[in-house]
């Protein structure tokens, strides 16, 4: 049912997958994104996932639940998820509506997210090379 072009580009950078969400996704596109990402984690043996939501000016409860679910699925597949680029207004709105990101790590932007992952996995620069768990 989720055919057609994917709306979220998932890029591979060494052991990390970077998914930039460029536009507001409806519920079925969200599900498509989730399926794509979880599949690719296995395909590329990714250890880290960065979801960049800087372009979103709204994150609704379904989206935030999907992101949390995604992070949990990624963890089960062996990858750490960081959500980056939440805008100030979005952050405030999410908190006010009582929908945080649960235990999912967040960072200011892509650069910070990569830094966080490299610290966590002990990789010098989040590039290729086997991490030391």
């Amino acid at each position, binding site marked *: 049912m989720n055919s057609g072009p994917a709306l979220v580009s998932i890029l591979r950078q060494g052991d990390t997958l970077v998914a930039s969400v460029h536009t507001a996704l409806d519920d079925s596109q969200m599900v498509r994104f989730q399926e794509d990402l979880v599949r690719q984690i296995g395909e590329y043996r990714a250890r880290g996932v960065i979801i960049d939501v800087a372009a979103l000016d709204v994150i609704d409860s379904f989206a935030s639940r999907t992101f949390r679910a995604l992070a949990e699925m990624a963890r089960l597949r062996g990858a750490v998820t960081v959500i980056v680029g939440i805008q100030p207004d979005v*952050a405030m709105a999410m908190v006010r509506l009582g929908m945080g990101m649960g235990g999912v790590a967040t960072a200011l932007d892509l650069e910070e997210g990569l830094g966080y992952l490299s610290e966590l996995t002990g990789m010098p620069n989040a590039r290729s090379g086997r991490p030391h768990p």
Partner: protein
Amino acid sequence: MRMTDDRTEMLPGEGDLARDHLLPQLVAHLREHRAKLREQWASRIRDAHLLEAMTPQEMAAETTSVYDNYVEVLETGSVEALQHYARDLSERIIPRGVETHEVVGIVLLLRDVLARSLFEKYEGDFGLLNEVLDAYEPAANRIANTVAVSFVDEHERVIRQQQDAIKELSTPVLPVRERLLILPIIGVLDSERARQLTEQLLNGIRTHRAKVVVIDITGAPDVDQTVANHLVQTVDASRLMGASVIITGLSPTIAQTLVTIGVDLSKMNTIGDLQGGLEEAERLLGYRVTRTEVTDGS
């Protein structure tokens, strides 16, 4: 279309005639007895204990100018002149701490004093008195009304100006080191201020790429449920943007209040004072501060 003559607003028919004919006469009367009427008015102001913030000299000057303007507006009936006069009066009088009821009070007193003098003048001819009052009352009421409205407007303008000033002053977000912000909260936090503070903090986090924020509430006298919840939200929102928050300066009273009212602060990182908070922040960011002088001689 508006006629150039403001008198078209007055009663039609005979009223017009009466006004055209009587008002100049009335104004002449008020001008002629200026000194006496002004003195009567001033003494009634004193009796009513109005304008007590002013010295007698100030009051004499003020009442004279108000009186002259009043008569002039009565004569010309021009709305613009009236508004200008009322605005001018408010601007002069508000900085001296004069209250709204006083301004309205003195204008109404002047109206009454002048009306009394008209009664005296025309007491022999009841029909003429009626016509004079027909001409006088609407004009006098319009003056009182306009003065009151413009005084309140001026008051509100001053309040808005001050609120803007307070807003700008009240929430500084200060970068102390690279990626470290301090947000000192001073004074009472209401929900409007708390909202603004969060907004500024989140924007500050983005601009300065902050990783750690120290919120110091030493200067906040009290924290209630609403503000505490807002603090929790601020901490959560900052975390969503990748910055961790340290709260410092919780006074003994505030600590007791928070625990008593049952705000869940377990997720919050709190440290006793600002100094401790800064040290902890530096530790989180990997700074180590050392003195430049070598003290032990090694």
